[in-house]
């Protein structure tokens, strides 16, 4: 748990983030040993490149989860923004204008989610699950079974060619957003409110915090960023289908949770999420290079996800049991699961 106001502090670094760093170092060393290609500049960019859209959305997802909510609709919003943009272009709209409208539809989705969650106080899980189905459905209505390939080459180049130095545009955007997110979440009033609400919504409201407004803003931001990521995805793929980005939400949420953000809200840091991004991406990259793909790759990530929490927990538990032994001899311990503690 965190001491400091917005949850960024040294003690935390010594535990969760420290652990992530350790695992990350191990994984990177293994990757370097096992694959001569890992350290190639191309590969390092690739490492981010293949998941860049997911990690961009992971940033806003961090805010949402710390706030005690969840947004399952992000991948569908990505798909809808891309499909809407494609549909408009297909209908003859100028491409840059269509891009703007792609963002706009993200805004609309955010408004819908935000209104239902913040003002009607429906559970975000249900609202965004319905959104996941519905927004994807709208994308389907727009593109049906067609594939849209009328992306202008300059836009396609944005996604595939270096933009700044060796970095493609999406990666530049990610780094900028990451920096902004850190400042906002850990140093600004807005970020403080996000934590406060995630910890104790009642206390926040009773302290004059405008809980609804903050929630509304978060869901709008989440959908907007998702729309942006969807459009960036198009620039990388060069084509749009209604199914674009399907199923990304689970990967995005996994990244955030592995970053040490509690699903019940109130705790977590972007440093942790950053480390978790590096860890998962290096793992995936390393395994892909080693020819481990598909379900096996997922299984290994799942296993690491579990072990990374289990091992320190067991160590701590053993330590505690040992301590208790010093004054009692019956070793039966009874307590409740950690995550269920408020």
């Amino acid at each position, binding site marked *: 748990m965190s001491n400091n106001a917005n949850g960024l502090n040294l003690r935390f670094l010594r535990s969760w983030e420290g652990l992530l760093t350790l695992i990350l170092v191990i994984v990177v060393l293994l990757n370097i040993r096992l*694959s001569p*290609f890992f350290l*190639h500049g*191309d*590969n390092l960019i*690739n490492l981010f*490149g*293949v*998941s860049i859209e997911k990690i961009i959305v992971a940033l806003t997802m961090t805010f949402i989860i710390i706030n005690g909510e969840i947004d399952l609709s992000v991948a569908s919003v990505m798909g809808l923004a891309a499909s809407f943009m494609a549909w408009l272009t297909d209908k003859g709209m100028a491409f840059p204008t269509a891009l703007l409208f792609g963002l706009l539809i993200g805004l609309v989705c955010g408004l819908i989610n935000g209104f239902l969650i913040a003002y009607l106080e429906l559970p975000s899980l249900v609202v965004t699950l319905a959104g996941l189905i519905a927004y994807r459905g709208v994308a*389907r209505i727009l593109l*049906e*079974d067609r*594939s849209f*390939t009328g992306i202008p080459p300059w836009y*396609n180049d944005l*996604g*595939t060619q270096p933009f700044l130095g060796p970095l493609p545009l999406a990666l530049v955007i990610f780094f900028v957003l990451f920096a902004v997110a850190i400042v906002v979440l850990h140093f600004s009033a807005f970020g403080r409110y996000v934590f406060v609400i995630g910890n104790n919504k009642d206390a926040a409201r009773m302290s004059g915090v405008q809980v609804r407004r903050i929630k509304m803003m978060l869901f709008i931001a989440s959908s907007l960023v998702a729309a942006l990521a969807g459009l960036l995805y198009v620039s*990388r*793929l*060069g*084509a*749009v*289908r*209604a*199914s*674009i*980005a*399907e*199923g*990304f939400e689970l*990967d995005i949420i996994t990244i955030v949770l592995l970053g040490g953000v509690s699903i019940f809200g109130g705790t977590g840091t972007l440093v942790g999420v950053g480390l978790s991004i590096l860890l998962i991406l290096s793992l*995936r*990259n390393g395994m*892909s*290079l080693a*020819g481990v*793909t*598909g*379900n096996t790759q*997922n299984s290994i990530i799942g296993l690491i996800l579990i072990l990374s929490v289990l091992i320190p927990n067991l160590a701590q538990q053993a330590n505690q049991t040992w301590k208790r032994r010093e004054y009692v001899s019956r070793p039966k311990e009874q307590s409740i699961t950690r995550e269920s503690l408020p």
Partner: protein
Amino acid sequence: RAQSADPIKATKGKKIDMVLLPKFLGIIVFDQANQGAQEAHKELGNTGKLEFLGPTADNSVAGQIEIIKAATTRGVNAIMISNNAGDQLVPAAKDALAKGMKVVSWDSPIAPDGENLFVSQVDFGALGKTMADMVLDIIGPNGGEWAFLSASPDAANQNAWIAATKEALKDPKYAKLKLVDVVYGNDKPEDSYKAAQGLVDKYPNLKLIMAPTSVGAPAASKFVQDEKLCDKVKVSGLAVPSEMLSYTKNGCAPEFALWSFVDLGYLTYYTTYMLAAGDIKGTEGETFAAGRMGNYTIEKDPGRKGGLRIVMGPFTIYNKDNVEAAAGGPAPAATMAATMSGTMSATMAATMSATKAK
């Protein structure tokens, strides 16, 4: 196929690292393709590696891209792709081509500028006509309503076959066949089962479900059988004989078709190996010998502008007469009772009459 008098032969024993990339893992037909590729791998004495790498079903598009990217980075010599990502694979595939890799698509093609060539299991136009014929054959000359149960709206090959079928339906002899809907079963038995259920609920007069997917066809058959509707609604499509045996025998799915995926994997491997070994250039008109499968010629793909293909050829129509024999395993095409080539009409008619004779 088999046009040039002097087909090019493969240089055996080279070291060529290859990746066989299916749409996703966990479906029998792709494993059969892998079987065929491994067979060719041994036969050609490739000292390099053949890896069978695929994404998960729920992450197919992004997963395919990731695998292509990783293969490119690792400097694999050639990659064989069954595209499940529409045009979205193109940038990654182009990248691979630019790095000097050979990219061959099979089963489901990529856009022409993202590949060297496409190993087509059948001529798509012919397949469309065959499906139309099967519909006509099963629901009879009086016609009626029928629908497609496809895998997903994003599967390039499925879409192409459906389009080809619609094209074929323009022939007046199919005038009474009314295609009412296309629904999708996501290549999952339970979704396909429910999609079939939805079709029957939606169209009370439905006479046939055409499922050009190896997962959809048995699932749809199971549904009509469960609902005791086999007399009313028939199932047809593209399916693996061993999975259709009982439905074909009890009349729920009187007729369906398939080619051998083992052969497809074998041929794809052969083609790709020769391309990467420099035996063939991958240009139109080249004819080469693909081991046990005989000779093939690279030709223009009529369905895809600027695309090249080779057509594997024979596929089989299965009915109650031949399904049992085939069900033992995916038998090579040669042993089948009725085989068809790209321009099949004669054999087709023969099969038809065989069915009608009953």
